């Protein structure tokens, strides 16, 4: 796993160095993770006094619950749309920023600014901007003839949530795309210029394939973001409302576990999410092995 040819002699030293990390991982990762797994097979009585082993009962309840399946579908659609739009907009901006000569660094600073804003803070900002009493956007949409009502209409609330999630994620994608573009050797760009007059064709046939590894890697990052990091955004902006139409899988783990205090069901959801992340990681490794690198 490492290619250092010469290593330090065997001694207790490495154990001392790695001990703090292992200790923290054991106590704050494996212990709770094991508990989630264990609790997902248990059913607690409503008073939390006793619990009994019920096998896959919690999972069966979960996958027969139309609300959970709705959340599942929403999470998939939501992460697909957020990833697509934030990647597309960021790629466009990165290509343009790479094209120009003057003012590159001010643009880069201004476009990365939003990275530093917490999802929860982004959610509150958006909440005020869409707010009926003081905000500007709901009124603007109404003036344009769209009966925009995120408080009561699930579709409108989802549009709002996706818009804000995309807004928050553009800077990360922009940084990586720009780094990817600047990593393309000058010789290749010059050769492309000679071979291909049309800048659009040049982009799709030469630049874009060269960016494919970056794009794929970013796709994984974006799906992870939409799944997990948007928690603060959802909790401040919609809280899953109206009627659970903007609830993601992670938000539901929190709702059922903390607010609903149904530990077994919430743990089963954690385990399902863990399997999803595992699948995502496997896909990631498979693709890296198959080398989209050219």
């Amino acid at each position, binding site marked *: 796993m*490492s290619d*250092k*040819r*010469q*290593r330090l002699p*065997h*001694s207790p*030293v*490495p*154990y001392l*160095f*790695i001990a*703090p*990390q*292992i200790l*923290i*991982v054991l*106590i*704050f*990762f*494996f212990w*709770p993770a094991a508990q989630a797994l264990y609790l997902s097979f248990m059913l607690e009585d409503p008073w939390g006094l006793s619990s009994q082993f019920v096998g896959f009962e919690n999972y069966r309840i979960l996958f027969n619950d139309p609300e959970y399946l709705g959340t599942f579908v929403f999470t998939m659609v939501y992460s697909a749309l957020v990833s697509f739009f934030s990647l597309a*907009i960021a790629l466009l901006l990165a290509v*343009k*920023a790479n094209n120009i*000569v003057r003012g590159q660094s001010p643009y880069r*600073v*201004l*476009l*990365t*600014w*939003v*990275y*530093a*804003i*917490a*999802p*929860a*803070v982004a959610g509150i*900002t958006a909440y*005020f*901007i869409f707010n009926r009493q*003081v*905000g500007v956007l709901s009124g603007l949409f109404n003036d344009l003839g769209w009966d925009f009502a995120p408080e009561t209409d699930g579709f409108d609330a989802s549009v709002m949530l996706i818009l804000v999630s995309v807004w928050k994620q*553009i800077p*990360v994608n922009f*940084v*990586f795309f720009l*780094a990817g573009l600047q990593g393309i050797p000058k010789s290749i760009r010059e050769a492309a210029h000679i071979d291909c007059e049309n800048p659009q064709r040049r982009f799709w046939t030469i630049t874009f394939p060269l960016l494919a590894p970056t794009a794929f*890697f970013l796709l994984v*990052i974006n799906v*992870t973001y939409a799944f997990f990091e948007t928690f603060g955004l959802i909790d401040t902006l919609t809280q899953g409302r109206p009627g659970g139409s903007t609830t993601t899988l*992670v938000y539901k*783990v*929190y709702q059922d*576990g*903390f607010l609903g205090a149904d530990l077994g069901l919430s*743990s089963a959801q*954690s385990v399902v999410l*863990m399997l999803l992340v595992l699948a995502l990681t496997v896909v990631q490794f498979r693709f890296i092995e198959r080398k989209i690198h050219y």
Partner: protein
Amino acid sequence: MTKDHWSDHLILIVGVLFLLTPLWLLFASSTHSVDTLIREGLQWLPGGEGLAPYGQALTTASGFTDTATGLRMLINSMIMGVGFAVGKIIVSMAAAYALVYFRFPLATFLFWAIFCTLLLPLEVRIVPSYEVVSDLNLLNSYTGLIVPLIASATATFYFRQFYKTVPNELLEAATLDNAGPWRFFKDILVPLSRTMMAAIFIIMFVVGWNQYLWPLIMTTEEGYYTIVMGLKHILSVVREGRVPEYNVAFALVILAMLPPVAVVVLFQRWFIQGLVESEK
């Protein structure tokens, strides 16, 4: 390629406006009086109140007791951001050192144990994590706020990657000079890693400062509130149908984003490096 095309600039300007207009709108509005905001809504230009709402945001408390002032929450966030970044750097540099420079029986096993943490973010194991921290009596403490967040492997892999690029000759020279493992780490590896440490510090500070869910469930004493989670109180005021002091609320939101934004803007180069390298 020598002349810029105006359309390139146009698209970039539209992008910048899309990203920054909401923030400007909130900042401009924070300098108006509550009356103006209620009557006329968000404002595009700065108003007559100036920075007075910021003073109010820093000194008045939003919760039930008066311990959670804006200033107190900012200090707590600072402790959390810096504590998280420093703790993470120390723990992961040490672990990466053991993994790269030593051959010991459990190395592969421990490597995969650390790797596993990437599979299950804190948000997913939030309920059992809360139980563990509560069993350890760490609720309402800085330790409880910071240490559980360090249990993820990103920075460890980052330093592991970096150590592998350090030339082997340095280790050979150090062994010839009879430098022990501790001397080699302290006198050679740490100084060499300075830029990497700065880059990862920027990223981790922002991550630590921006935590929301963990402090939200961890802290019941208002003296431990961080500013990002403290903002939730503004929303509960609005949701209960009361009219909040909008300008003070906006000032708090701006204050909550200011430190991490400042760090990213001021240390742009390190930030880009840290972001690109740590996610690899």
